[in-house]
């Protein structure tokens, strides 16, 4: 892990720009001998203003491919804001201004010529509250492939729906009622349906905004298991309030506080040997 002990803050990354692999190469092999993880998302000097409010301050963060990156921090620290910068969901907020650079595989996400629709297909999202469409389970999953024209014909669409539901670990529970409304499922099933819906368009990155905060412990355990399995094929960024969850599912953890990215590193290191006193205070429960 190249950035294992990196304490990200403003100005420490003067080489901000579209060169995702440069910081990796310099310190790479030492920290993680096995596979040098490829950087999928590369954020440099990201600032977000909501009107007058400076919600996110000079954030530099790399998200590695096929890893789960957890964003933790007290409420209002900007972790969800940062998450929503990565697929430009902040665009829909009227007075939200984003500066800095975020690249996905070297492509600038905020390039005006970039097609947001395509970006959001590549960077899927799962929300805090399960939000299936008030349509059938099948239609929920089929919606993404349909609008992007991914499937040719009904059988191909059927296959995508079944594959997505299988990968989300939901098919067995709903196989005989695909035409019933998705809103009739239990909370945990709804959230897995939302995950199935997100992976139906075969995204490269999945952003999860506190996906388990509305769920009971059993449903949470299932989702966490699922996240671990999904890591093989997808890059996952998860915002969570539960530090146990961050510890359980993530390989890397970033700690946000009052709009600053305080510390980012291997999950194990963050939880056992944090460099910053604020991180220490938060993970030991002294504030937050």
């Amino acid at each position: 892990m190249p950035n294992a002990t990196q304490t990200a803050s403003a100005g420490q990354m003067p080489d901000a720009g579209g060169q995702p692999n440069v910081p990796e190469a310099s310190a790479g092999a030492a920290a993680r001998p096995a596979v040098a993880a490829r950087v999928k998302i590369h954020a440099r000097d990201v600032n977000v203003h909501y009107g007058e409010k400076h919600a996110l301050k000079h954030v530099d963060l790399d998200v590695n491919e096929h890893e789960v990156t957890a964003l933790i921090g007290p409420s209002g620290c900007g972790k969800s804001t940062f998450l929503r910068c990565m697929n430009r969901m902040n665009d829909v907020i009227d007075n939200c201004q984003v500066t800095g650079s975020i690249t996905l595989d070297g492509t600038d996400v905020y390039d005006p010529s970039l097609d947001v629709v395509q970006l959001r297909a590549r960077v899927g999202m799962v929300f805090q509250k399960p939000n299936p469409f008030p349509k059938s389970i099948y239609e929920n999953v089929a919606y993404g492939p349909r609008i992007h024209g991914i499937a040719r014909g009904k059988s191909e669409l059927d296959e995508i729906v079944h594959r997505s539901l299988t990968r989300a670990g939901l098919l067995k529970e709903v196989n005989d009622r695909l035409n019933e409304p998705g809103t009739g499922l239990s909370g945990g099933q709804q959230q897995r349906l939302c995950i199935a819906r997100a992976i139906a368009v075969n995204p490269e990155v999945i952003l999860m905004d506190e996906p388990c905060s509305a769920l009971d412990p059993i449903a949470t355990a299932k989702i966490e298991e699922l996240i671990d399995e999904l890591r093989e094929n997808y890059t996952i960024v998860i915002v969570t309030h539960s530090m146990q969850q961050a510890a359980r599912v993530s390989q890397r953890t970033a700690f946000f506080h009052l709009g600053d990215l305080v510390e980012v590193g291997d999950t194990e290191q963050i939880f056992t040997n944090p460099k910053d006193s604020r991180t220490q205070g938060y993970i030991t429960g002294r504030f937050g």
Partner: protein
Amino acid sequence: MTDTSPQIASAQLGTSAPGTQSGEPPRFDWNAPEMRRGFAARHRANTRLQIYGLSAIALAVLLIAILVGSLVATGYQSFVQTHVTFEVFVDPAKVDAADPAKGNFRLIVRDSFAAQFPDVTNPRDLRSLTDVMTADAPFIVRDRVVADPSLIGQRVEVTMPVSDAFDQLQKGVTPRDVPETQRKVNDKQIAWFDTLAERGQITVPFNTALFLSADSRFPELAGLAGAIVGSFYALLVCFLISFPVGIAAAVYLEEFARKGRWSDILEVNINNLAAVPSVVFGLLGLAVFLGFFGLPRSTPLVGGMVLALMTLPTIIIATRSALKAVPPSIREAALGVGASKHQVVLHHVLPLAMPGILTGTIIGMAQALGETAPLLLIGMNAFITSPPGGILESATALPTQIFIWADSPERGFVSRTSAAILVLIGFLIAMNLVAVILRKRFERRW
């Protein structure tokens, strides 16, 4: 915690003492007289408020009952109509088989009717005998003969309305016991009428003409068909304009427009438009649609356009609140899988908001149906004796028909006005019921 519960119990019994422990806050004596008085006052205020509300509702119900009651009391008589049945001899000498429309039906009808009373010979008596029938009697017979020329030379049984004066006599509206000079019908006529009734030639069936005929100078023939068709066409035009335009405007304002000073100004103006008196819209229609664009006056097209102006704010406001009620999580879900803005709106937000939009639209339409002033100004209060064949023909509408009838002096129009109001109210209730059913049926919870 456990040691405080006995203290709470004792406090409720009214034997509480100030807290013994140093840090404990002082306890209230819930049973102190001023406390009890306070409670009693609050209960009284509560009861008082409920009584105010109940009496307001009772007053409203009473007023509605009086309104509907008086309408029914005067209007019910118009739902039946007195008819007379007699045999008409279509004299071939008076009507030419080659051109039946030109026949002298006045004479045919008079002679046939006079045949009922062979002893009446004096011309003045004959004229007053003919007055028992509706003044349109020759035309009623003519229309039948024109439709079927084989009737010429035959004896045909014809049932037609009696004239208004005798209709009122039969219904007991015109009293029989006042001096002859103060009645529209004289003693002889009453005697003939009673004879006809004794012979079973007078019947009082359901008044189908009220719904199937258009307006007429004679109350016994006047109906609402023209007004109903006119209102239908006007509402159709109104719907076709205001529904798409209203939804498009609301969707843009709610989903696409940036919230700011301009959208605020726009919103205030739209809300103001909803409060503009309808007569102003009528004047606008008169000046712009008739005066400037020269569209034909008195037509449902112009009426519908004016009503659309009035209905637009209602639909825009209803649509915006229906769109606002769609939870943002649905929009996020759709955006999150890569739907574009228009797909979010068309695939998810609009279908979910549709019940609310339709409810608002129907309520707007119901308002438009009852609107009178703008239609008066663009001339939809014309006297039109046949239902309009399209949106470009002169027509009346239900409320303007009520206006015309309320203005007419004939006795029969009094109850017909009430009947027309009942019909209008019936349509309004039906439309509002549909709105309620739609709302209940498609109500969704998230």
